[in-house]
């Protein structure tokens, strides 16, 4: 293709996006669009899969049968999200094995929040309430993103996430209405998860890369700082409702802006965790890699069995 032809295709492509038309896998797309989507969708898929681990940690110890079932179902939903996000990636011509390889080698990232340990049962509440809460704020705009498979996946993901978020809040509410120990457990969980949740919305706009392009492709609608403000404004009243204190002495409602001002985020911690040195990066990655390696003989067997069956069918047919 000549440079001019490409230029022409790109213009048509950008115009389609501007008209809010969905781009589908078989449509022509710029290589950078493809790459950016593979990167973001796979990062999202990886986050779902790694995100199963901190919550999976409490399945055997959930304090009631009802909570155990709900937690199992939630972690299963995350596996499901991973599954269709990987599938959406695959429509762009990359295999799941390649995507895993990127995760296991450390080339691909996943959400840093999952590198914090789940220390008490209250963390199951806090993760649902705060982490899923922040995730939704990140994800809701993606339901209208330009790439069709991603947008459709996000519709389903967001619906389930918001159920999880309510469930998390309800765990917190039960604790806060419970004994002194339970309330202390809830406050402690908020103390530990608050700041990492704020970091989940990404680095400050000044530090953020990819933003302009992503806005154009509707992979982003608001800046990280705007999303963070939205999260805080939404969450502070919920904390009040729970009777919990946000661990930020600088947090204060600003009558002029109608929003909450808040204290400084420890970005050193953020970058340390992103770079692989958080409390559980090593454990999370080992768990994933071990599961994959230990499962190799199983996947091989399934493949061999399928081949044998296919051969049998051919033999019968001939």
């Amino acid at each position, binding site marked *: 293709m000549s440079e001019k032809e490409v230029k022409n295709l790109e213009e048509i492509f950008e115009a389609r996006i501007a008209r809010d038309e969905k781009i589908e896998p078989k449509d022509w797309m710029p290589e950078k669009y493809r790459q950016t989507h593979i990167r973001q969708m796979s990062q999202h898929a990886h986050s779902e*899969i790694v995100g*199963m*681990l901190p919550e*999976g940690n409490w*399945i*055997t*110890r*959930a*304090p*009631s*049968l*009802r*909570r*155990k*079932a709900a937690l*199992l*179902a939630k*972690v*299963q939903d995350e*596996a*499901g999200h*991973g*599954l269709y996000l*990987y599938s959406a990636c695959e429509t762009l011509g990359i295999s799941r094995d390649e995507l895993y390889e990127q995760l296991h080698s450390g080339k691909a990232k996943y959400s840093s929040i999952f590198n914090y340990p789940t220390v008490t*049962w209250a963390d199951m509440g806090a993760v649902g309430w705060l982490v899923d809460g922040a995730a939704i704020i990140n994800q809701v705009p993606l339901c209208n993103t330009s790439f069709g498979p991603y947008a459709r996946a996000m519709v389903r993901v967001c619906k389930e996430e918001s159920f999880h978020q309510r469930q998390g809040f309800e*765990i917190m509410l*039960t*604790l806060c*209405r*419970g*004994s002194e*120990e*339970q309330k202390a457990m809830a406050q402690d969980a908020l103390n530990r998860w608050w700041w990492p949740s704020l970091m989940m919305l990404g680095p400050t706009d000044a530090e953020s890369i990819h933003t302009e392009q992503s806005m154009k492709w509707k992979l982003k609608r608001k800046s990280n700082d705007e999303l963070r403000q939205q999260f805080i404004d939404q969450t502070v009243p919920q904390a009040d409702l729970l009777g919990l204190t946000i661990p930020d002495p600088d947090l204060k409602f600003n009558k002029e802006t109608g929003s909450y001002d808040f204290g400084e985020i420890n970005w050193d911690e953020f970058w340390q965790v992103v770079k692989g040195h958080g409390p559980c990066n090593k454990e999370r990655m080992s*768990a994933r890699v*071990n*599961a*994959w390696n*230990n*499962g*190799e*003989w*199983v*996947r*091989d*067997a*399934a493949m*061999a*069995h399928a081949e*044998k069956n296919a051969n049998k069918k051919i033999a019968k047919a001939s």
Partner: protein
Amino acid sequence: MKNKNLYNYILTIADNSLILAQRLGELCGHGPNLETDIALTNISLDLLGQTRSYYQYAAKISGEGKTEDDIAFLRIEREYKNCLLVEQPNTHFGYVIGRQFLFDVYHLMLMEKLQNSPDETLAAIAKKGIKEVSYHKRFSSDWVKRLGDGTEESNTKMQEAIDDLWRCTDELFFMTDAENAMVKEGIGIDVSSFKGKYYKEVSEVLKEATLTIPENKYFTKGGKEGIHTEHMGYILADLQYMQRTYPNMTW
């Protein structure tokens, strides 16, 4: 308690589901691929759902103001009545599948009988369970075949698991006092009645999976009478952790 035998009978069935669900819960996020991870979680969820129905019924008939959680979390080890099979560890995926398969075949046969029990609650739980357990059995038999008739390595591993778990199968058909009493009352199922059918069906799947049917005639038992393997204490330490550490709270 008026219905002590019925109460114990329910636990004999329900504890299997609880402990197997717990074992499967350990695996969540660590499966060989996402699809099996989801499927095993699903089975765990089904079993947990059944457990809750049984325990709610048991709590009601106990007439002691017990809840499902009291029954699930606040017994001592000797009071759990699950068979030894379901408490066997997740040594590797072959064991997970082998344990599931050997249990599912039994479980479905039991549910099929139990749905006709004159005890309406048990019949209803069983009826609902049949659909779920049929799916479990399909899943586990398919995997037994895949692993048995897969690669040389998977065949060896699947055979190892079957050989090892085989000694836990006979106990499924051991009749406890509570079971005998409930059979007498016409409510419970005489599990020994489908023992032959069980081994026939299991053998057919193993054969199709190109696996050798174990010839070992020595079996272990004890679980159904509350004498468990040394694994059980560790299962309970985790299972009961929260309820024991923070007694009498609402979660």
